[in-house]
């Protein structure tokens, strides 16, 4: 009868899950599964400006309201807290004003000129708001020189993410799609290397053809550039790789996680006004499922953000070509091979992901940008055995970077002193009992008293 309990939820009793995987390892490094999650619209300083390690806010920072008068009013970074903030303008024009030819002092003015409260650009979050990300940074790798690929919004940057190029000059999806542009997925498909694009709440009927001449783009279309390619829509061989997120969890359970996975967290992207908590919970779920699976030992999970979202960042982005880089974005690497609590300051952009894929699976560079990018190998330590998975808690730990109150540890000296004395007393009593002679004389006359 008890076996019914086991059977009712469809499992093999008495055994652990099979470790079998059909994936033939073709990777140059122990990383056989790369998972990349791209979230939305934050800068490094916006998330990690006050993080104790890494290149955060400079001491005494105060950004002028009007860069032409730097001696005038200025805005210091301030904690945003739980108040939701509207989407800040993050157009190319705004980038230019904020960048101010490398002066990095136009952030307030640029938004003011867009009729927004420019001081909001100086707001930041910390471990009260994003405790899980700070905990991840404590344990794994935080990148503090990870730049968005282009000084614009989602389209350019996400095109760099999959193709190493901006797609077009207009930072928008062409009416006839991106046509023959080669993507990393074309290369993977051609080489027979498994890949999937997981989308939370995926609607297979929604692609660039549904635009219908209107300018507003549905998030799924904006943030999944593959849905602007005819072949990825029409060819069943290719379109079958674009799937709902449920399959991510099934693939982990079944040992069928592909070599390269891209994920879109629709509904949990942290794009302002979205809840940061929901975004973190979503990420936590993805990472925990990976850690609970057999794939963990050969995987790397990269979290990054597609653009800066109008927020302040103090590091001038290098200008490597006509399209960028854009401002820094937060990025974290979680892997059993990731260096522990390491801040990687190597300059990267989204094409660094392509570079890693190309080098790890032996593919040709997709573009000049990706050919010249730094791969993310510096964040790994392949000389040590893979680290055991560790569920990263939501609550902030008390420690070097924590802000929580550290409860006073017990006074062990008191415990040892008190109970040690009692134990000693007991031993003395035993000893005395053994040597005391006076009771023995009473044994013979025991019935007389």
């Amino acid at each position, binding site marked *: 009868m008890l076996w019914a309990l*086991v059977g009712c939820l469809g499992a093999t009793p008495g055994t652990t899950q099979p470790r079998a995987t059909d994936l033939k390892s073709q990777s140059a490094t122990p990383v056989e599964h790369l998972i990349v999650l791209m979230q939305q619209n934050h800068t490094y300083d916006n998330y990690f400006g006050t993080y104790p390690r890494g290149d955060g806010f400079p001491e005494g920072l105060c950004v002028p309201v009007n860069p032409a008068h730097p001696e005038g009013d200025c805005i210091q970074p301030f904690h945003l807290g739980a108040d939701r903030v509207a989407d800040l303008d993050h157009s190319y024009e705004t980038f230019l004003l904020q960048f101010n030819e490398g002066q990095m002092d136009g952030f307030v003015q640029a938004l003011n000129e867009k009729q927004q409260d420019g001081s909001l650009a100086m707001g930041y979050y910390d471990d009260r708001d994003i405790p899980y990300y700070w905990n991840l940074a404590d344990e794994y790798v935080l990148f503090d020189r990870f730049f968005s690929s282009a000084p614009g919004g989602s389209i350019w940057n996400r095109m760099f993410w999959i193709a190493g190029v901006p797609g077009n000059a207009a930072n928008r999806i062409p009416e006839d799609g991106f046509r023959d542009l080669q993507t990393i997925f074309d290369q993977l498909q051609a080489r027979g290397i498994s890949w999937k694009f997981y989308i939370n709440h995926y609607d297979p009927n929604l692609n660039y053809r549904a635009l219908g001449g209107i300018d507003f783009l549905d998030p799924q279309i904006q943030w999944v550039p593959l849905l602007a390619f005819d072949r990825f829509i029409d060819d069943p061989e290719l379109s079958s790789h674009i799937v709902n997120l449920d399959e991510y969890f099934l693939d982990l*359970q079944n040992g069928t996680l592909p070599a390269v996975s891209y994920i879109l967290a629709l509904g949990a992207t942290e794009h302002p006004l979205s809840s940061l908590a929901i975004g973190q919970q979503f990420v936590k779920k993805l990472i925990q499922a990976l850690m609970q699976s057999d794939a963990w030992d050969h995987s790397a999970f990269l979290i990054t953000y597609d653009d800066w979202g109008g927020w302040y960042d103090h590091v001038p982005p290098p200008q490597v070509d006509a399209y960028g880089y854009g401002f820094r974005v937060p990025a974290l690497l979680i892997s059993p091979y990731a260096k522990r609590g390491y801040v990687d300051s190597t300059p990267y952009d989204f094409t660094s992901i392509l570079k890693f894929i190309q080098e790890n699976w032996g593919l040709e560079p997709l573009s000049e940008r990706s050919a010249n990018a730094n791969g993310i190998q510096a964040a790994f330590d392949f000389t040590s055995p893979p680290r055991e998975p560790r*569920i990263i808690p939501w609550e902030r730990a008390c420690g070097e970077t924590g802000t929580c109150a550290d409860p006073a540890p017990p006074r062990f000296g*008191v415990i040892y002193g008190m109970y040690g004395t009692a134990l000693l007393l*007991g031993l003395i009593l035993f000893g005395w*009992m053994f040597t005391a002679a006076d009771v023995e004389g009473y044994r013979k006359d*025991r019935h007389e008293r």
Partner: protein
Amino acid sequence: MSRSAYGLRFVSAKTADEQRLYFIHAVTLLSILGLACVLRGFALNALGYNSDEAVYSGQAAAIAQDPILSEFFPIFRAHPLLFQFSLSLIYKFGVSDLAGRLLSAAVGVVTVYFCYRIGALLYGEKAGYLAALFLAIMPYHVIVTRQVLLDGPMTLFSTLTLYLVACYALTQRPLWLYASGVGMGLTFLAKETGILFVVSIFVFLALSPQIQIRIRDLALALAAMALTMAPFPLTLWLARGGGVSTSRQYLIWQFFRRPNHDWSFYFTTAAPAIGLALILFACLGLWVLRRKSSWRETLLLSWIVVPFLYFQLWPTKGYQYLLPLAPPIALLAARTMAGWLPGDDLQVRTRRLKGVSPSLLATGIVALSLLIPTWQSIYPSSSIEFLAGSGGVPGGRASGEWILSNTPEGTTLMTLGPSMSNLLQFYGHRRALGLSVSPNPLYRNPAYLPIANPDLQIRLGEIQYLVWDVYSAARSSFFADKLLEYAQKYNGRVVHVETVTVMSPNGIPISEPVIIIYQVQP
């Protein structure tokens, strides 16, 4: 022959006859203690800990500053820490369930020795051997002292105190009374319910007018007891770690908790484990030898009746709570046997043993009636029925070890109740929360954290595994059903099943799942 202290007797023996006699004494005593060791040591670690054992060992590990287990087991819970502290001295060299049980078994063997000392003191050498033999093979004492429980050490110190009080009653020397105070303090430090024996002492003194006592000596003995007990309150106040608040909450909980067993519990569980024949002979002796009755029987009966009445009236009952009654019952039964066997030394008895006397036969019957169930209880076997305090939990250790090897560090599990949580935390090194732990502080042990909203915590990924077990399910089908509902609702996937082999009603061995672990994916 001059009888000095026991340890000095052999060296002070003058003649070859005396030396031979003491050799026989030593062999007899060592044989009994050896038997006690065998019964307490055989297959000692065949089954893993039960919940209470895991808690006390976890506390010891926390005192030893084990970095992992101190996360799950706070130092201060309900009880004083003398035994846990002693175990922590061993755990400084590494935490091991076997080490904890070996210490407990050693405590049991020392108690057997004290039982001999009391018997020899009150009724002669022969009664001492018989009492020690009965305690050495008594299922109740063997079962409990094979576990890391506080009742074994409490029984050791209560038996020591009994000896010290008897010494005072014999000698009237105040030093023995002061030592009794220290013994009482140690009894309390082993487990707080040991304080009941203060009442036993007062009852004994009240019913034994021939025992003279000065108020000043009594006050000094009480002062010695208070000083010895002081580490308990002082560490709560001075050592931090939330001890005062936990103890206060624990007291409130104890007053408000619902009865866990009915009034007949001790009669149906403890009495058979002590030995019905043994109890019968103890009672028989009180009647048959009533003309020889003295303060000795009053003392032993005070040691039995006071704690028995208390635990019978107290709504919370536990299998092992009556353990301190075992030595005085063994002593009374031994008195009966010794009373029927004339002669006062081994030489006389050796001559008589050539014929089988009725009392020897009775002794054999009692001994066999104890030994057989003891052997049955310690011989490794599996069962899907479990009574707290009666032994290890089949499958518990293996499940914990599976969790340790197959789940990520930092994993949180949801079990049916806190008992399985304690086990899995000890062996699995993972946080485990009991679904049945009440959010109402009046109805829960303050050491346990309730799950305020299981649905939410599973959905947020704060709980990753659900653990169903047959033992807790037998106690609460409501929570068992609830846990399975959660498993169903959140795509629970069985990742591990722990089974035990049991006999079917028609005698065929079958494999029964006892612990099932589900991985949930909201």
